[in-house]
């Protein structure tokens, strides 16, 4: 049995022992992020859960963070990789501030930087296991984009990750408008989050909605959505069923 200590990333694929050095599967994960552009900027919603497989283990994880003056980053997927990304961005923003020259990184720049990072990691077969949502406002222009763990990146008026793609985006495609007010935007996001709460098993009923405008970032306090479980059809779900379903 050969035992070679992996020295460089060239070994990452060739050597069985080197597998412990690269990400193969996620452990503690966050579920969907849903975000929309609205009249004054961008709104982003996420719940505060961190699942450990099928266990809803952590219930106070903030998955949306402010980046610099102009951006908001939301992440689903591996929480520790999200924390690593926040460290990279912290350094980026710090160096940008140290220039002290009137120029600052806007959401587009941060989004592209993240795309480069994610794609580079994917190429080394050692991905950061996240889908990231980057929203922001600079010089009056709103920006909303997404990057996946394999480096696929794009911009849109509304984005969602994970289950949100399947459950929230159809709602947004029907009901999103460019001139949504803040209240309407929040209502729309809550509608999406409620569907996710009912149907996504990794969702918990504790969410935060973050807002970014030209003035800056505000992240709401955690709160819960009202749910209704008294539908008659669920009282005796198997009545009228045929076979074992």
């Amino acid at each position, binding site marked *: 049995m050969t035992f070679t200590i992996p020295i460089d990333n060239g070994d990452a694929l060739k050597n069985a022992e080197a597998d412990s050095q690269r990400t193969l599967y996620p452990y503690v994960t966050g579920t969907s992020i849903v975000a929309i552009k609205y009249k004054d900027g961008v709104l982003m919603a996420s719940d505060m859960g961190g699942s450990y497989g099928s266990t809803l283990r952590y219930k106070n994880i903030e998955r949306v963070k402010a980046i610099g003056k102009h951006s908001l980053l939301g992440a689903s997927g591996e929480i520790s990789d999200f924390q690593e990304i926040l460290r990279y961005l912290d350094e980026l923003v710090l160096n940008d501030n140290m*220039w002290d*020259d*009137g120029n600052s*990184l806007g959401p*587009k*720049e941060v989004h*592209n930087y993240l795309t480069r990072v994610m794609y580079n990691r994917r190429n080394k077969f050692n991905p950061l296991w996240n889908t990231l949502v980057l929203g922001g406002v600079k010089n009056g222009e709103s920006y909303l984009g997404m990057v996946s763990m394999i480096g696929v990146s794009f911009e849109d008026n509304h984005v969602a990750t994970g289950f949100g793609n399947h459950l929230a985006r159809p709602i947004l495609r029907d009901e999103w408008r460019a001139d949504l007010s803040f209240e309407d935007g929040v209502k729309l996001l809550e509608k999406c989050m409620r569907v996710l709460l009912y149907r996504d098993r990794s969702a918990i009923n504790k969410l935060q909605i973050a807002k970014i405008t030209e003035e800056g970032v505000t992240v709401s306090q955690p709160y819960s959505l009202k749910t209704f479980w008294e539908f008659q059809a669920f009282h005796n779900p198997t009545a009228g069923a045929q076979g074992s379903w």
Partner: protein
Amino acid sequence: MFRNQYDTDVTTWSPTGRLFQVEYAMEAVKQGSAAIGLRSRSHVVLACVNKAQSELSSHQKKIFKVDDHIGVAIAGLTADGRVLSRYMRSEAINHSFTYESPLPVGRLVVHLADKAQVCTQRSWKRPYGVGLLVGGLDESGAHLYYNCPSGNYFEYQAFAIGSRSQAAKTYLERRFESFGDSSREDLIKDAILAVRETLQGETLKSSLCTVSVLGVGEPFHFLDQETIQKVIDTFEKVAEDEEGEAGEGDAEAAAAPAEQGGGGAGDQDVAPMEM
């Protein structure tokens, strides 16, 4: 500047606190042919004199596009200038690729200055023998910087470097306060007039100068000979007309004597008209 025992190494200080090798490098800049830069709030114009080695050869390229929003004009060792331009292009494109956004010119000149400083503090290197006039845009508008072999950089409203640049600088000093609000056309005209000052006697022709422009909404590009000649024609004609008036008696200006030193815009000899 005379030879002395402290000028062999760039890493040797003189007793009076000077690094002579660095100062000699700045001399090299003064020997190169002139380069001029000026800026308004929204545009930067870079112009230079095209000096060819001999009648048989073509002139050297002294103005380089670094990116759509940054250009550089050099004076001194053009070979050093080319190498630094390549470095600047590389920095600009790397930034563009990572951030999908243009590199702010203020940050580029700092990188350039730090690179030049390294050469003033290594015994196995020599300073770059080239001065660079870097014009470009960033979030706060148009900027013009001068990077020097010493590793210093300065921001200017207008500047000239190279041989006989003092004449251009004198011209610019008289006019610079109005440049901020100048229109693009006036800025170009002032640049060409400043080039003319450095020629001191030679007729200004479009083949003798290269002019480049960049600005908000206008990517860096060179002006073609025709455009430059048109601008020259606007003020050369005025000079000839005024010279005609200034000469008493022989108002036909058929034989405007060289020592007359015509009135109006030119305070140097304008070639006499041939009738």
